[in-house]
């Protein structure tokens, strides 16, 4: 079943990815963003909204920015407020936000605040780790099911509709449930609060919604004797905060990509890259499996022409993740079945790509997306496409398989769409269970040739990107055909240079804990 893969080329690609990402590591060390600081506050337990529905973390950070103290980090200010007021962190934060606790910037006060911040961060992280450990046990006890994991989305806009639908899907065999976010949430520079019922094309990601869904799936999982994974979206202007909420509420996965926000939401590249670094430090520590978004490239670019851009980007995402201390088993690198259905031998090219990705990232839980772009409103037709998609999934051993929905071209899924999707996947996975053991691919065939071509083109592209630098390359549209200038997009105003006294004790602790992984050299799977 293995394809011949040139391991030298793969190693070269990984070296290029190191060269590409290295300049940005320095940038991350010098910068922070407003959402990172809000994430720090959330890690300390700051939550809730004021009477105008503005989250307290936002209020605090705005206040710090207004008073010119943000560049030292929110942790110090919170420490100062707690120590000065003697209140608990939440009350202190609320007071701080309202400008009630006057800043005492004496070196002494700062020193004490740093100590408080550091030791409280350790305590909070320990609590989080203990929580994750308990969940991991629960998951191990129940078992997460064989791969390909059947992943379905719920997206009603109303968490109280989402819950029974997610449970229904889980009963029908879904291994992973994703709650899609409302159109536009990713461009909000705050995380909404509480249970929400008014999303469009998805449901707002909030801590309360996470908790409700997690609880519903846990209850059902216990009843069924099977663990159901929960995931949500961390890309966007609040990536680190969503990550904190996901960690606190026990999510198993997060959509988390270094470049998605830049390309598909026109978020400024420095903002998203800085955010993803902190976000991934936390994901690594909490064992949250990330899903990257290269699949999206093929929704705007052609899958045959631009297949190699997916692979190049996976190498970059992999390196960014390693640099943030994530091990391979947490990297759900994304790709998709988006070849035009009218392509002669399109299926062969899909097999080539899926198998190549599988072999190049042997320890990564690959995320595989169904046909979307070429899907039409002919729902029968869609079901046929999804059948071949599922076949290639089980044939090439993809890990996280998003199931194609009947009404992809129409509206977010009906309950029956998920049912039919799961029925299709169960049929195909079982009916073709051991097909992969039956096949040796012709080493000079179209499939082998296509996989060689994609790898060659990916290396060539990485060379170009390494030459000009990632930021410039994105500026001229190497991925998804989308051009993003370095100073364009949303959210750049939320990025700031760290003061020499800047403190983010969570980052320090996490980085220290995961330093070893950042040095790792990934090995592709050798062909026998």
């Amino acid at each position, binding site marked *: 079943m293995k394809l011949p893969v040139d391991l030298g080329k793969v190693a070269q690609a990984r070296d290029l990815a190191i060269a590409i990402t290295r300049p940005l590591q320095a940038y991350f060390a010098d910068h922070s963003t407003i959402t990172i600081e809000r994430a720090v506050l959330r890690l300390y337990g700051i939550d809730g909204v004021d009477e105008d529905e503005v989250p307290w973390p936002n209020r605090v950070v705005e206040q710090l920015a207004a008073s010119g103290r943000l560049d030292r980090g929110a942790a110090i200010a919170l420490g100062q407020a707690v120590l000065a007021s003697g209140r608990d962190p939440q009350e202190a934060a609320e007071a701080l936000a309202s400008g009630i606790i006057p800043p005492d910037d004496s070196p002494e006060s700062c020193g004490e605040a740093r100590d408080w911040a550091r030791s409280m961060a350790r305590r909070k992280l320990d609590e989080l780790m203990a929580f994750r450990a308990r969940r991991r046990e629960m998951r191990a006890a129940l078992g997460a099911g064989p791969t390909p994991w059947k992943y379905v989305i719920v997206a*009603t806009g109303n968490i109280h509709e989402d819950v029974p639908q997610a449970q229904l899907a889980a009963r029908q065999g879904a291994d992973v449930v994703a709650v899609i976010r409302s159109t536009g949430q990713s461009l909000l520079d705050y995380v909404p609060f509480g249970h929400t019922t008014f999303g469009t094309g998805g449901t707002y990601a909030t801590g309360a919604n996470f908790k409700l869904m997690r609880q519903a799936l846990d209850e059902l999982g216990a009843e069924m004797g099977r663990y159901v994974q929960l995931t949500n979206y961390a890309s966007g202007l609040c990536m680190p905060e969503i990550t904190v909420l996901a960690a606190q509420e026990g999510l198993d996965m997060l959509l988390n990509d270094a470049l998605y926000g830049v390309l598909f939401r026109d978020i400024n590249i420095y903002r998203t890259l800085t955010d993803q670094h902190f976000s991934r430090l936390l994901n690594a520590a909490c064992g949250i499996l990330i899903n990257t978004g290269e699949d999206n490239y093929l929704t705007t670019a052609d899958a045959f022409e631009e297949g190699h851009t997916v692979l190049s980007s996976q190498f970059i995402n992999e390196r960014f993740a390693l640099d943030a201390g994530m091990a391979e088993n947490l990297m759900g690198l994304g790709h998709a079945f988006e070849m035009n259905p009218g392509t002669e031998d399109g299926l062969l090219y899909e097999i080539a790509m899926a198998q190549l990705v599988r072999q190049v990232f042997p320890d990564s839980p690959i995320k595989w997306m169904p046909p979307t772009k070429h899907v039409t409103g*002919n*729902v029968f037709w869609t079901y046929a496409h999804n059948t071949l998609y599922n076949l290639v999934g089980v044939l090439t051993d993809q890990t996280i398989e998003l199931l194609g929905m009947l009404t992809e071209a129409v509206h977010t899924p009906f*309950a029956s769409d998920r049912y039919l999707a799961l029925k299709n996947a169960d049929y195909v996975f079982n009916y073709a269970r051991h097909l992969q053991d039956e096949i040796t691919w012709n080493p000079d065939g179209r499939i082998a040739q296509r996989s060689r071509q994609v790898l060659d083109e990916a290396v060539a592209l990485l060379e170009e990107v390494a030459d000009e630098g990632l930021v410039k390359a994105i500026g001229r549209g190497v991925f998804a055909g989308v051009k993003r200038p370095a100073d364009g997009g949303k959210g750049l105003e939320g990025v700031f240079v760290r003061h020499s006294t800047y403190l983010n004790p969570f980052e320090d602790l996490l980085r220290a804990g995961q330093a070893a992984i950042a040095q790792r050299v990934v090995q592709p799977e050798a062909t026998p």
Partner: protein
Amino acid sequence: MSLVKQPDLTHVLPYGDTLDDGKVQFSFSLPVPAGPEAAEAARRVLLQMGLKDPLLVAMEEMGPSTTFFVLYGTVTRGVDYANIHVPKAEFEHLDMHEIDDLVERELGRELVVVGACPGSDAHTVGIDAIMNMKGFAGHYGLERYRQIRAINLGAQVPPETLVARAIEEGADAVLASVVVTQKDLHITTLTQLVEIMEAEGVRGRMLAIVGGPRMTHELATELGFDAGFGPGSFAEDVAAFVAQELIRRQSR
């Protein structure tokens, strides 16, 4: 904590992605070429059904002047599910041994049933599933029952032949299986069967039972049968019904 709504069973609506949203998927063809007028015609087909917001999602020309459509639409009138009463064959579900024991105990004799696919229908898999020894999906057929003598005449048996044989064997029940329903072929054949049984004067002393993929108890009784069995029936259903009905009749 969770505010999950519950359906109102007196007013049940189709469920798309929101309880009671009334969403239904449709597909059909119209004998017109594809185009904006065809799209509007397809929408009007739904509007004439009283649907709200017909949404055309696929329009594909199948050939000159024939177009295939997929639409979604919204039903607004609910169904009173709580007050639906579907006639069902009345019997207690028993397994093979319980039925054999019941027959032995209460009737004290072997039952005789004669089955066939009447008329031009040649689909024997259903009647075989009910009658043949090996049965179907792990449920033994009537031939296996200690207290039942089961005679399966197979396919394409003229109704006259079926009734004649049933009389000859002194049957307690006639079992008919009808699969072809095109142009209501099954209705014609079944009506004939019952008429012949009546003409032969045996309708009173022989149960008439019918099964098939489009059969319901309601339809069967309308056609003058004692019971009807649809998809997913097994030998023990019909055996339990026959045994209990004969016991009921004996005690009257």
